[in-house]
């Protein structure tokens, strides 16, 4: 009975989304205040019913209701309670409900934080998000209902959650990734509302920026968590595999990064307007494309959900409608979005344009590499090929290198026109210092000429020194360093932190791929293996039991230079219900290097196979992304967005006294 309530709530959410998609939109077109004012209550309704639906699914998991097909195939009575709850997003149907609920959450957030915006605009934004919600809820009801039943003979116990997913990161990675992903629909809705109304000014860009930043920052965390999880769970010692399902979020991330920079120019200088709108549409399209790829079985991959062509047909139809429709709308309306000012050929605008160009080319290349096997298959009539990491690395690494070079120059250059002399004054010493230290330090440390390391060090120092030099110039006239640092706007700190984080991530990625070493060995208890400066002695295994698995746990004694350093305990687990074996790594994570051990199988004479890794700097990759995300969030809190809101709401209240919700608040 209870699952039917969830289904019913889902149907109601669908009905309310249909109303939300049309009534406020028509109201905005006809300037009907009553119809427009329905946007907020309808949004709340959609969110409430989606929440009920999600809650019911969670309840079905907790109550072990195996008459629900989705619960039966993704849970088990022995599964710990926290995995039972999070198993909601452990498969296609439930994760799509969760995804749709996230959309509802963002819609609610727009409701709450849009008090400064004109009613007409809010009505359009919410209506567009309502239409997207119509597509999602209809998709669930038509092709992948999480409340489908196995009746009249429900199984006695469930098939268990995929063993690889039973990990702490599974509790946080999908929510953050989805939240970031879905957040791009807010910016998309803003862009389409701007195209419909023809109003795209500095105010629009200022409304848009916090949303774009927030979605992008959360997506950064989601991606990073996924990479960290893959690193310590899959046990191949890598952190990014250019998997066809990892790539779409990265494409969205790159387009989102481009959009954030382009929005800055749109807000400050009124330029790149139609380009910003196009980026917003493309970023959202790439997020839908990611959905399409994972859920249609278009590409085979470790992440792919069950394959079902009808789902693919539905999502593709939805994609064609939403993205095709918005791109046509863009083509028709973009000529109205004229730039207000020109800019010189050497200015911050130009550097932002270069940034955008690089990011968009990088995303296009990744898209090409991801879809090429499919295109090839379609053209050759069935043959399959794969595009591997060499393709992506060859394109991605040089592009990011150029991006980092420009990252030092862009923030220092001035809007409209910047003189070469200005740049030389600011960056001359920076360049000399970066190149000399970037060459000398690696050479002294390694007593060799490691070109990859030198390149990495020079680029990283180049950006870091330029940021330091910029801050120094900016606070030169202040009375003290502290008051100077305080006087810099929060959004400036956000940018600086994010840039620093990006450099750290890039440096970590480069250095770890240069210096990682690994060794696969077959050891009997008491034997050891040497790797780098470390000795790994295998002390044997013991039997351990978890709630729903049994495992062999090895004790590996790590010593350095003959001195005891640490014990590591990798496990080989067998999940009882599904009979799936998994490996649990033994990791010692430090700021400068990780020790990473995996336990293989037992062989003849009681010897165990195992692989040990020393991975220098690998942690920088994820620490860097925390800086990026934190920088993005910090920029959202900049007080000028809030100041502006007050002014704007006063203005709206003046303009339409008595008719507006927006005027009453703040």
């Amino acid at each position: 009975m209870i699952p039917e309530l969830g289904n019913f709530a889902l149907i109601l959410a669908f009905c309310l989304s249909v109303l939300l998609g049309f009534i406020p939109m028509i109201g905005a077109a006809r300037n009907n205040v009553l119809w427009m004012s329905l946007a907020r209550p309808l949004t709340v309704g959609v969110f409430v019913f989606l929440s009920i639906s999600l809650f019911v699914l969670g309840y079905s998991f907790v109550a072990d209701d195996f008459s629900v097909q989705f619960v039966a195939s993704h849970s088990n009575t022995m599964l710990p309670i926290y995995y039972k709850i999070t198993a909601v997003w452990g498969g296609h149907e439930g994760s799509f409900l969760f995804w749709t609920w996230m959309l509802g959450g963002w819609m609610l957030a727009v409701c709450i934080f849009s008090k400064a915006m004109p009613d007409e605009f809010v009505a359009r934004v919410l209506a567009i998000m309502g239409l997207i919600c119509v597509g999602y809820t209809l998709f669930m009801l038509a092709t992948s209902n999480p409340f489908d039943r196995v009746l009249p003979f429900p199984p006695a116990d469930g098939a268990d959650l995929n063993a690889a997913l039973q990990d702490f990161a599974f509790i946080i990675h999908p929510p953050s990734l989805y939240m970031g992903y879905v957040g791009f629909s807010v910016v998309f809705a803003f862009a389409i509302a701007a195209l419909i109304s023809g109003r795209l000014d500095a105010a629009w860009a200022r409304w848009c920026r916090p949303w774009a930043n927030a979605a992008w920052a959360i997506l950064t965390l989601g991606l990073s968590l996924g990479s960290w999880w893959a690193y310590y769970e899959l046990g191949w010692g890598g952190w990014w595999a250019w998997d066809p399902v990892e790539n779409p979020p990265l494409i969205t991330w790159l387009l989102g990064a481009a959009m954030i920079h382009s929005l800055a120019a749109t807000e400050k200088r009124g330029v790149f307007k139609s380009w910003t709108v196009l980026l917003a549409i493309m970023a959202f399209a790439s997020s839908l494309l990611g959905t399409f790829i994972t859920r249609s079985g278009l590409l085979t991959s470790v992440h792919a959900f069950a394959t079902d062509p009808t789902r693919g047909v539905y999502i593709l139809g939805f994609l064609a409608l939403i993205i095709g429709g918005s791109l046509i709308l863009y083509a028709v309306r973009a000529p109205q979005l004229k730039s207000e000012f020109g800019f010189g050929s050497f200015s911050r605008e130009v550097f932002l344009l270069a940034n955008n160009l690089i990011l968009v080319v990088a995303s296009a290349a990744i898209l090409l590499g991801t879809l090429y096997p499919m295109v090839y298959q379609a053209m050759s009539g069935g043959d399959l090929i794969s595009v591997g990491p060499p393709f992506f690395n060859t394109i991605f690494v040089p592009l990011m290198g150029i991006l980092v070079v420009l990252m030092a120059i862009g923030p220092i250059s001035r809007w409209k026109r910047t003189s070469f002399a200005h740049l030389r004054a600011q960056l001359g010493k920076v360049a000399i210092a970066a190149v000399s230290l970037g060459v000398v330090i690696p050479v002294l440390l390694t007593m060799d000429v490691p070109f990859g390391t030198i390149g990495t060090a020079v680029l990283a120092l180049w950006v870091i020194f330029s940021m330091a030099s910029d801050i120094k110039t900016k606070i030169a006239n202040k009375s003290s360093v502290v008051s100077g640092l305080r006087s810099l706007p929060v959004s400036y700190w956000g940018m600086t932190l994010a840039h620093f984080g990006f450099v750290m991530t890039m440096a970590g990625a480069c250095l770890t791929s240069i210096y990682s070493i690994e060794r696969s060995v077959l050891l009997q208890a008491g034997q050891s293996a040497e790797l780098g400066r470390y000795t790994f002695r295998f002390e044997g295994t013991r039997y351990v039991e978890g709630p729903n698995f049994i495992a062999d746990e090895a004790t590996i004694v790590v010593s350095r230079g003959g001195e005891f350093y640490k014990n590591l305990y990798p496990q080989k687990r067998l999940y009882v219900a599904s009979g799936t074996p998994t490996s649990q790594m033994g990791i010692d994570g430090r700021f400068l290097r990780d020790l990473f051990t995996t336990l293989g199988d037992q062989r003849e004479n009681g010897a165990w196979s195992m692989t040990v890794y020393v991975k220098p700097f690998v942690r920088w990759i994820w620490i860097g992304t925390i800086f990026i995300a934190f920088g993005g969030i910090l920029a959202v809190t900049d007080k000028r967005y809030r100041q502006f809101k007050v002014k704007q709401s006063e203005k709206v209240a003046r303009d339409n006294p008595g008719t507006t919700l927006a005027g009453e608040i703040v």
Partner: protein
Amino acid sequence: MKNFKLYIPVAVFAVLAVFMWQGLFLDTRTLPSVLIDRPLPEFELRSLEMGDRLLTTADLPDEPFILNIWGSYCLPCLQENPIFMSAKERGIIPIIGLNYKDRDDAARNWLDINGNPFDLNIIDDNGRYGIDLGVYGAPETFLVDANGVIRFKHIGVINYRIWEDEIMPAIAAIRAGGNS
């Protein structure tokens, strides 16, 4: 139309959508390979076991066998290895490995550590033979009959369920077909 370039995005999207539409109906998992019921392509390749001697199709078993595409870098291969090991122990069918885009030493090391279910490991280090076979990526598994004709193909990892429900019946069918 003076703003025709504004229509470029929608045109690009339309082309992409057409390919995706086609892609949907070319299911990479279940679509029979174009090579099904064709002879195994000819090759002249080294093996892990036989030093510098180049092997050809003549060196393959003259009974039905499994051809498994694997690599030491391939995580799912690790997952299906125990299945092949038990098949080998029970003497169900000869298993030939095609070590795909791998390094010899890494491959040997992997076999030492994880166990070697293969009667023979053909080396396709540059992936050329993989192209002839239409390999998408490791792991992939082919069933070849006694006459050297490919009769079955599975893309992706083999778990116990796939082994019992698909591979074993396919082996039985090939053996039955061979007798009649």
